[in-house]
């Protein structure tokens, strides 16, 4: 009898039920999408923040001071220590290797150009680096996305160079021109514009700088662009003072500090540090944006919950006569309530599941559309969404059910309630 009542209710009032189900589904869709976005946006924005370039730098452990004002490097060429180029692929072997978005080595050398000291910067442009079976393209093009070249990027194995735009206008150079550096002939493949020191420099493939310095395999610095999590108090702890369990947790969180620590482990005789201007500010902006999305998600859950409840409440009001009839036929409060509760739970579950699937789809599309990569929704979220849907539908119908149960059946049947 109970099952038949519930079944009949759905069967007869298909349109009315459909309306409520749509409301519940929409609420669940938006909730799923918002929670998915709020949880996924940190990672996505951190990827976007790679537009700021490297947030970590690796230098030799024992290094002399940098003596650089603006674009002019006054550091004596002989002084200072170097890192080993052959250690570079190990960067893609650290625990957080998948968070390393880009990296590039740098080796500055001072050369005579037109009678003036000029810095020649050796680096990778887009060099294929192999670690194990993994192939990775490292270089300045991905590490410093704001570098722009008029002409062509040089090949990493060639003798071609880029000339900074200010230096180029000083020397009156165009792409394709020839440039004599320390007696050797180089082709200028393009004019580089960066908005910083490189505009006055020559940027060349790494082997060119190594040959000028006479130090094959040497690099001075590695700039690493990593996807990180905003640092918190725990991130700032010294890993050596932590208990083994905490240390593992520290090591396995993508904080700038722990990635720097792992880089230091991977590259021998090195010191890895965060570039605070990028790392700190990025973390700051990141936590603001994720915080904003979380709060909006809460507000969205709350408002869509209330809106669905309101829709549910009106749908319940309409069933006074039905309640009157059932009561006149002898139904008790308990059986009446259980019918309505079963109905709401059924509606909530159906709406919740459909809404969850739609929401997951929506989240993926939003991720694709805005960030160019989909945002995944964890299946763990399904029970949460179902729970919220049931609570909301139940909350919306509770008042109406209580009222309906209290009606005098005679008044309800005469339509005077």
């Amino acid at each position: 009898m109970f099952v038949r009542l519930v079944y009949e209710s759905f069967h007869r009032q298909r349109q009315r039920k459909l309306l409520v189900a749509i409301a519940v589904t929409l609420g669940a869709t938006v909730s799923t999408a918002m929670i998915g976005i709020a949880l996924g946006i940190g990672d996505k924005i951190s990827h976007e923040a790679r537009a700021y370039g490297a947030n970590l730098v690796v230098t030799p452990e024992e290094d002399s001071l940098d003596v650089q004002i603006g674009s002019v490097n006054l550091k004596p060429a002989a002084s200072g220590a170097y890192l080993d180029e052959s250690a570079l692929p190990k960067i893609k072997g650290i625990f957080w290797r998948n968070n390393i978005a880009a990296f590039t080595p740098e080796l500055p050398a001072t050369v005579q150009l037109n009678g003036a000291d000029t810095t020649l910067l050796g680096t990778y442009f887009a060099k294929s680096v192999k670690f194990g079976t993994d192939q990775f393209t490292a270089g300045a093009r991905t590490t410093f996305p704001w570098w722009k070249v008029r002409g062509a990027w040089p090949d990493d194995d060639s003798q071609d160079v880029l000339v900074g735009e200010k230096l180029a206008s000083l020397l009156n150079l165009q792409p394709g021109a020839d440039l004599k550096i320390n007696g050797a002939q180089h082709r200028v493949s393009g004019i580089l514009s960066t908005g910083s020191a490189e505009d006055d420099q020559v940027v060349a493939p790494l082997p060119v700088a190594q040959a000028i310095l006479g130090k094959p395999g040497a690099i001075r610095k590695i700039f690493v662009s990593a996807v990180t999590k905003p640092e918190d108090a725990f991130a700032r702890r010294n890993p050596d003072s932590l208990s083994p369990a905490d240390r593992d947790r520290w090591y396995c969180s993508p904080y700038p500090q722990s990635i720097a620590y792992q880089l230091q482990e991977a590259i021998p005789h090195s010191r890895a540090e965060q570039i605070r201007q990028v790392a700190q500010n990025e973390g700051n902006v990141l936590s603001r944006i994720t915080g904003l999305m979380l709060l909006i998600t809460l507000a969205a859950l709350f408002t869509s919950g209330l809106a669905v409840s309101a829709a549910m409440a009106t749908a319940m009001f309409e069933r006074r006569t039905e309640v009157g009839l059932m009561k006149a036929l002898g139904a008790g409060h308990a059986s009446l309530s259980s019918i309505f509760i079963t109905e709401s739970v059924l509606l909530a579950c159906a709406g919740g599941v459909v809404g969850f699937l739609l929401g997951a789809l929506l989240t993926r599309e939003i991720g694709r559309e805005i960030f160019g990569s989909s945002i995944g929704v964890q299946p763990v979220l399904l029970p949460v969404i179902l729970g919220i849907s049931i609570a909301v539908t139940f909350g919306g119908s509770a008042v109406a059910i209580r009222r309906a149960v209290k009606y005098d059946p005679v008044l309800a049947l005469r339509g005077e309630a």
Partner: protein
Amino acid sequence: MIANRHGSGASMYFRMLRRAAQLRKGQAAAALAALAIAGAAATAMLNLYVDVQVKLRKEFRKFGANIIIEAKPGEGFSPDAFAQIQSAVAGRGLAVPFAYAVARSDKGQPVVVAGADLEQVQRLNPWWSVTNWPHAPDQALIGARAAQLLSPDGKPFTLRHEGREIHVSPVGTVRTGAGEDSRVYLSLSDFQQWTHLAPSVVELTASGTNSEIASLLQQLQRQLPNADVRPVRQITEGEARILGKTRLTLLSSASFIVLTTALCVLATLTGWVVDRRRDFAIMKALGASDRLIALFVAGEAAALAAAGTILGFAAGIGIAALIGRINFNAPVAPRFSIFPAVLLGSLLVTLIATLVPLRLLRRIQPAMILRGE
């Protein structure tokens, strides 16, 4: 027109509206609540969407300079030129002059020494990790790497520049992970007394939209034809990118939330109208025209929408302000200019939600509805 046909039409109309609200308090309240919620969601989301740009720009300004002005090599900025820069950014940014020189330590180690107003540097670059900012003359802030070489035990040391010496005591170290770690920072007056060099670089952080920054750049380039004025592309491009993506995400979330609440309003009001079909049948049986009934329902719905929007607008501004306070430590300023948009939207939704089902009901004969068919 109604008033022309029936003497007391207008007063009857309002009495019907009032009585309808009194008699069906519960349902009217549910409809009103739904409208208020939708209004609150729309208001809060629109307010945040408009304001988030301002708030995030403020966060982005903590990245430090977004414009750098460099004097010609070997030259410095005169106080006059600096005053021009100051007046160009007055009120919307901070301009900090830096002077640089390469000095030598006791052991002949070359080191870059910078002179700047350190209080302003602190405001310009809040991301610097500094143990202690100097306040007195002859005190220096030294980079973490420079400290290891020049003064590992924190003792005062001597720097030499073109035959002149200065004796400084380090009071704090700065760590940034970049060039600053290898430098020594002095106050600008100490630096100038010692080296007689004028500032050669002005770092500038200006807030504003992209076009405002671009016009500031042009203005500075016009005013200082001898200097090199350039945007820090790393900062400006990264900022534009994050800002754009965040606003897009916010916009899409906002539209989904508003759409959902609007559809729930639609469902609530449709149910409300359909439920009152007996009332309309009685009205029709008593001689009311379809038009009068439509006008009656529309009036009722519009009154509900207006009341709901006002309630929702107030609540929405509160929600936005709360979110602003929790997340940005600054309230989101209420924007009353969005009120007409929210009101228009909710009127539209209410009218669709009430008049469409009413049109469907009109086809049915009053007698059938009254008989319960």
